[in-house]
């Protein structure tokens, strides 16, 4: 289960809406071992595409170094789907390289109602998990 604060959910949805129709992506870091997302980090989608995303490699190195220095891990890795449901695509599954992360997908295909779902992706196997939103 992913337990996450409402303001962090709102921040992911706002980022996804802002970059629509391109895919938006980012990370929410949290203390090592806590499984709690705390620090919201929007990433550049180096692909600037409505069907693909990729973290900019230089920005990724910088952010991963910061997390290392802070004893943080990428608790959540999120991206948006702008024309399809919030379910991992075949490319999402083949690229998924952080077995301990919660992969959050936000769909902005509906202009009013977003869809937000969370998954574990380990060795090509996708497992959906419940999302519990907390107020603080």
């Amino acid at each position, binding site marked *: 289960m992913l337990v996450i604060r409402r303001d962090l959910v709102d921040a992911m949805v706002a980022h996804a809406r802002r970059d629509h129709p391109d895919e938006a*992506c980012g*990370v929410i870091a949290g203390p090592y071992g806590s499984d709690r997302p705390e620090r919201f980090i929007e*990433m550049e989608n180096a*692909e600037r595409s409505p*069907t*693909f*995303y*990729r*973290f900019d*490699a*230089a920005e*990724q*190195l910088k952010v*991963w170094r910061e997390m290392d220095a802070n004893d943080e891990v990428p608790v959540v*890795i999120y*991206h948006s789907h702008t024309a399809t449901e919030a379910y*991992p*695509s*075949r*490319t*999402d*599954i*083949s*690229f*998924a*390289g*952080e*077995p*301990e992360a919660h992969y959050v997908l936000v769909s902005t295909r509906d202009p009013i109602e977003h869809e937000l779902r969370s998954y574990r992706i380990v060795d090509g196997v996708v497992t959906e998990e419940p999302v519990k939103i907390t107020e603080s």
Partner: protein
Amino acid sequence: MAVTVSIPTILRTHTGGEKSVSASGTTLAEVIDDLENNHGGLKARLVKEGSLHRFVNVYVNDEDVRFSGGLAAEVKDGDNVTILPAVAGG
């Protein structure tokens, strides 16, 4: 030529859980071959058909090797090689 290689979580099964290991070589390709000798299975996770796998980012010090020759990128004594899984998808 000894370098330090940072290993991401997903590949630490090949290094007995070690976060960073040392290796030697004068190019990234040689470093990866040396890694493979000591940590079998790593090379196949990094190299496909003679070039770096598109699923991984490799940096020598802070430079993405895609812009410095890929597997032919030169490494010097004391360099840090960082491997990160690319974060990407569709």
